[in-house]
């Protein structure tokens, strides 16, 4: 059977990579004595698949992974047992059975983020500036990937961008992005906005939280 688990990852665990996260969950499942299916081959590993990787330093409150289980297990029980063996900072918040053919990678369409940024200089009307930023016909940026960097148009990916709170120099932004092969993360949006505003954010101090992955 195949389970889909929704999880959150915050606190110090934001400093671990996607690969570290996968290993941590695999080991937690073993500690919980959950019988997961193993891949064939030289180095068997559990049949787990994750949604889009989260960048180092970001937290999440709505990511997912799928895992193939040997035999049967109640989703509630999976959640309860696994939560007992996960380290502080990782928690399963929801779990349900999905069809074996249901692929997480086909399901993830959009992602919502909040991003905390710190202003280094005052911006007169940030919400208004954001509207002007989004009002442009195209927003070209250079996106880096393993195979080199590439120019893409951010406009194709931004579904929503607004300021939701300002407290002193700390500003919280809401960003909603389209997820597809090679789509950019929210940091690119913040960077492009910062360029547009003439460098007002402290780019060394940004906190990204993926509030939710939206599945269709």
């Amino acid at each position, binding site marked *: 059977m195949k389970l889909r688990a929704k999880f959150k990852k915050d606190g*110090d665990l934001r400093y671990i990579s996607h690969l*570290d996260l996968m*290993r941590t969950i*695999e080991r937690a499942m073993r500690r919980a004595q959950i019988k997961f299916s193993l891949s064939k081959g030289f180095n068997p*590993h559990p049949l787990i698949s994750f949604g889009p990787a989260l960048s180092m330093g970001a937290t999440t409150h709505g990511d997912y992974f799928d895992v193939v289980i040997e035999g049967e297990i109640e989703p509630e029980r999976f959640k309860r047992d696994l939560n007992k*063996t996960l380290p502080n900072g990782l928690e399963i918040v929801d779990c349900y059975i999905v069809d074996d053919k249901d692929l997480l990678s086909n399901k993830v369409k959009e992602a919502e983020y909040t991003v905390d940024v710190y202003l280094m200089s005052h911006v007169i009307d940030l919400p208004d500036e954001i509207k002007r930023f989004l009002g442009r016909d195209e927003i070209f940026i250079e996106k880096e990937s393993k195979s080199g960097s590439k120019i893409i148009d951010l406009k194709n990916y931004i579904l929503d961008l607004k300021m939701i709170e300002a407290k002193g120099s700390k500003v919280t932004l809401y960003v909603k992005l389209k997820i597809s092969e090679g789509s950019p993360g929210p940091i690119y949006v913040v960077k492009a906005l910062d360029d547009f505003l003439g460098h007002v954010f402290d780019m060394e101090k940004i906190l990204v939280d993926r509030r939710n992955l939206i599945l269709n």
Partner: protein
Amino acid sequence: MSDLKNKIDDLLMKVNKPARYTGGEINSVIKDVDKVKIRFAFAFPDVYEVGMSHLGLKILYSLMNERDDTYCERVFAPWVDMESLMRERDIPLFSLETKTPLNMFDVIGFTLQYELSYTNILNMLDLSKIPIRSKDRKGYPLIIAGGPCAVNPAPLSDVVDLFVIGDGEEIINEILDLVISCKKDNVPKEELLRRASKIQGVYVPSLYVETYNDDNTIKSIKPIEDGIPAVIKRRIVKDLDKTYHPDKQIVPFINIVHDRIVLEVFRGCTRGCRFCQAGMIYRPVRERSKETLIELADKLIKSTGYEEISLTSLSTCDYSQIESLVYDLIEKYKEIGTGVALPSTRIDAFSVNLLNEIQKVRKTGLTLAPEAGTQRLRDVINKGVTEEDLVNSTKEAFKAGWKSVKLYFMLGLPTETMEDVKGISDLAHLVADVYKDVNGTTRGLKITVSTSTFVPKPFTPFQWYPQDDMESIINKQNYLKELLRGKIFSYNWHEPNMSFLEAVISKGDRKVGQAIIKAWESGCKFDGWDEQFKFDKWMAAFESIGVDPKFYAYKKRDFDEVFPWDIVDVGVKKDYLKRECKKAIEGRLTGDCRLYCTGCGIKDLDEGVVCFET
């Protein structure tokens, strides 16, 4: 604490591998610091990934934390990126568990695994705002050190308050009890150290003086007052089966060097290789029973969830019930995908059937260590393996589908000639021929040859021998680079100047200790890391204190010379080492002491010491 935690948090996005500095791993221990009587910082003088792979840390961390009155936390050397930010923002070195500055601990215990990590000890003290010399440390934490390199405590004598010689788990509770009672009664450090010096296995360097002859050799190492032991007897665990082994191990978030469960099957080694310090200073062989090991394995697998369990010792295939242990473990855990690893494989004891079984769960590499290229030289070092062993075992392995093999050798062994160096390449080519015999071609084959440089170590039969000079080592390396051309071979070698420094420090006296301090003052740290190693600064440091490093590495020693480490009695007698040294030159072998007693003298170390019984 929270203030420091916030300051640390501000740095973490700017450094490599921030999870090195966060703690919070499964099985790490969180205690209420107000409810313990003593706070102990286990300090490993290298990065997190190296330190977390170390078995001694796992044992002592769990053992100390089993005591309600003690809280043991961990600290590692911050990598240079983190260190420079910490210095820039005036952040002291802190423990992983509670983010407490190190100078607030009662005891800081360093483990000495490698001579080239000594400058990191100084750097870690300095980052903790603790003076590096023990004489300047009134009112500061007690600095203790143990581990294999502590068998020659001389080079760190000005830095460390107290050395532990031998198995730490055997002695640590006595030290903790003493520190707790002294803390309660406000006993000053000097008196605490005097009392500690009476515990067997403790060396307090400030209570001894080292004097020299005109030729710079040691005249004597003597206690400065009555009632202090003249020789420090090593402490050993007598019955390993009844001795503490942790049933939980911390599971790091990031990949560490040995990212697996470590299960120690026995301690010591019976082989008697003449270059091997561990083989001498961990005698005698003490085994855990198979039942104990299986029980421990079960608890460890359940408490960690690891995908691999490594059966550790100096020569694991020598374990008396190795086959049935491995089969039982594989059978029991293959369903959950947890495999077994044998890290230290000798080519003679090496059982291909065993490795075949292991491979069914998880693919392991094939690593063999002939150590020397010719039979003559292998006889000199008492590595009792033959070319035939190598041919037989690689043939079986290739038949079973292995395609790559790693071969380890040493360069610069006593009596080595260019013929022996060529022998290294000959063996590698021989293995390639074996592969061709099995598969009809060399396609797909990968042979990795690694050479390290022989370092003469204290308490080995080669302790009187000089190290080969750097120029000669470089020639030999270049010769091998020529001989090992072609796609199927790859050749790795050690930096000869690092091995030179390792020899100087491992055979060093208190004067070498002054050079270590000087080198650190001029910016040396992480000396075991190629990209950080600053050989010129080290040589300048020796020059500025007027000490010739070549004296320590290259001098052929007389049998009656006093060594800086003669203050320590590891159990193996000097007469035995001399005998072995002479036999080496004659190329005469000494048998495995499981077959008959070779008379090393270890049984006389202490009452109740029992050797391996056949």
